[in-house]
């Protein structure tokens, strides 16, 4: 079948899928079926090549940062913005951006890829740059073990043709550098005094703090307090206010800066880059703020114990009403064990206003064992959201939610207030 015909077919399916509401990956699936090389052919034409971003936590917000930083430097960037980070999600995103002849008007592609899918993707399309953020216990029911997931990420790094950016503070990720002979390796890092605020899986049950080797990092997050962050870039300190919330998002900003510097090399003005960074907001559901009745509602996506622990450490519960929504659909991970690796003591003083989701009572049980009080439990998300909003009408609110719970909550919120639609 001709490329033009496939493009038209795919675009039609995309339109129909949109009319049906949702299904961001379906059109991509159709196109992948018709022409397995569709993505390869289309991306091969890009002058600056392909960038792959992977790791357990923070892919979506980091990708958003890298895209906006590159755009601020005048590049045309293609990305898989919907957060559908599987191959067919990329095909679907391509369908939206190419013209009818199948030509993609972009300088570079920046793609977030799920670890398991990235492995197949890079075998077909070796990226020029890759950024590996971290590896934590996520969806063990899908991948099995962290060491196995680390190997998937190593595979991505090995397939990269030019530069690999690695997290200095994650021992498993930093260790990938040892198996890279043909690539340039850059690191991003954290100042030692911030390190303690980052609980890793390895120190979850250990008292000993982690010691990182004396690897030199290109960009270091040196300080972060309230909204002000200081980065050390090539030994020079730059301080800026940020719209990003949560220290893990800000740490990933160091990752994004390192990657962007590697891509643009010398054609780069650090201060203009930081100025742009200051305007970037988190990706949807990742600390995103939605306003309802003049009160902010923050959505914090939680997918795994380390992410949940970081979220609880990053956001102070005082003066906030807190809700937690836990689903166990395939995209959330079916195993509830992970809730037992999260420490909820920080919520003890304020209590939790609302619990919801398919596994609401698993969450309630977990809080009972940390002796955290709960006001309402309602598994139905729509009803729970209503209850939560009316329970604390004049308070800022924060909802910790798993992936499919987040999508449902956004959908319900969009009916009563302004919620940014995701392309």
């Amino acid at each position, binding site marked *: 079948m001709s490329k033009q015909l496939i493009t038209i077919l795919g675009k039609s399916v995309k339109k129909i899928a949109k009319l049906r509401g949702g299904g961001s990956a379906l059109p991509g699936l159709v196109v992948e079926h018709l022409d397995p090389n569709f993505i390869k052919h289309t991306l091969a034409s890009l002058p600056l090549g392909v960038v792959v971003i992977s790791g357990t936590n923070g892919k979506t917000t980091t990708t958003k940062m890298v895209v906006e930083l590159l755009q601020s430097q005048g590049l045309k960037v293609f990305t898989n913005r919907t957060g559908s980070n599987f191959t067919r999600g990329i095909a679907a995103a391509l369908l939206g951006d190419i013209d009818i002849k199948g030509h993609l008007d972009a300088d570079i592609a920046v793609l977030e890829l799920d670890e398991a899918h990235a492995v197949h993707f890079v075998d077909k399309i070796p990226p020029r740059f890759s950024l590996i953020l971290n590896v934590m216990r996520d969806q063990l029911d899908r991948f*099995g073990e962290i060491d196995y997931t680390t190997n998937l990420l190593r595979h991505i790094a090995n397939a990269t043709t030019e530069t690999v950016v690695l997290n200095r503070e994650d021992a498993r990720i930093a260790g990938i550098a040892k198996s890279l002979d043909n690539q340039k390796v850059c690191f991003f890092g954290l100042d030692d005094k911030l390190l303690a605020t980052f609980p890793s899986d390895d120190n979850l049950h250990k008292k000993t703090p982690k010691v990182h080797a004396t690897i030199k990092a290109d960009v270091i997050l040196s300080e972060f307090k309230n909204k002000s962050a200081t980065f050390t870039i090539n030994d020079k300190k730059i301080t800026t206010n940020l719209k990003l919330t949560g220290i893990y998002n800000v740490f990933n900003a160091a990752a994004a800066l390192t990657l962007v510097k590697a891509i643009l090399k010398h054609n780069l003005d650090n201060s203009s880059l930081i100025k742009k960074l200051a305007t970037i907001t988190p990706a949807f559901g990742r600390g995103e703020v939605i306003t309802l009745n003049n009160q902010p509602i923050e959505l914090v996506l939680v997918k795994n114990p380390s992410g949940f622990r970081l979220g609880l450490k990053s956001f102070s519960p005082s003066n906030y009403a807190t809700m937690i929504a836990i689903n166990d659909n395939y995209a959330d991970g079916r195993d509830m064990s992970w809730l037992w690796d999260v420490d909820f003591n920080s919520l003890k003083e304020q209590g939790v206003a609302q619990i919801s989701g398919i596994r609401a009572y698993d969450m309630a049980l977990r809080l009972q064992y940390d002796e955290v009080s709960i006001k309402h439990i309602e598994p139905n998300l729509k009803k729970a959201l209503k209850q939560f909003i009316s329970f604390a009408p004049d308070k800022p609110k924060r909802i910790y939610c798993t992936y499919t719970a987040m999508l449902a909550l956004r959908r319900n919120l969009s009916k009563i207030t302004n919620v940014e639609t995701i392309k």
Partner: protein
Amino acid sequence: MKNKKIRILHLYPNDMNIYGDHGNVMTLQRRLEWYGYEPEVISYNQGDPFPDNIDIVVGGGGQDSGQNKIKTDLLLIGPQLQKLADKETPMLVICGLYQLFGKFFKTANGEIIKGIGLFDIETYAKSERLIGNIIINSEQFGDIIGYENHSGQTFLGHKASALGHVQLGAGNNAEAINEGARYKNAIGSYLHGSLLPKNPAIADFLIEKAIIKRYGEFSGNVIDDRFVGLARKAAIKRPR
């Protein structure tokens, strides 16, 4: 009842700690407190002196790398654990430590990792990973609800009895109708979830055995188990 101490030995928390098995230790600790006793959790990691006067032993699952780190040390303390089990000390070991409490684990490349043989079980690495929600049934504990995630498949010898019969899921191995193993008051199982918070009948079994052994009789306050009842109800309806 104050100052009535119960000493819980937590095996290898540094290296065998994935899949939320920490919830088992927390459940024993809290329920003992709620009953009015004073729990003391002692972490045992490789090379540590083996503590005295242990009332309950708990251990969890780990990655292959974690198991490799502790396997030699476990053989060293094996006789002490066996002695405790023989004297009817309640124990709970999950997944990785369940396997190593058996006779051996045979890896994919044919290597034999020796276990301490407390359970009459043998485990073989298989390519298929058994993953998903699991419900088993036991006469003593009723429905036991959890989540399994293992590629080692375990076979019971003549001397071992199972923890329960599989209602949903795989269990000890792909063909098995049984799950877990028991020896006196020791229980081995593949169930995460964590197992004890969702199955308080097993938690209370371990607790009561420990208290009766130490203090002659068990009495305690009533615990509010409404949430766990509802959590179990929701979990039973979920697909594999």
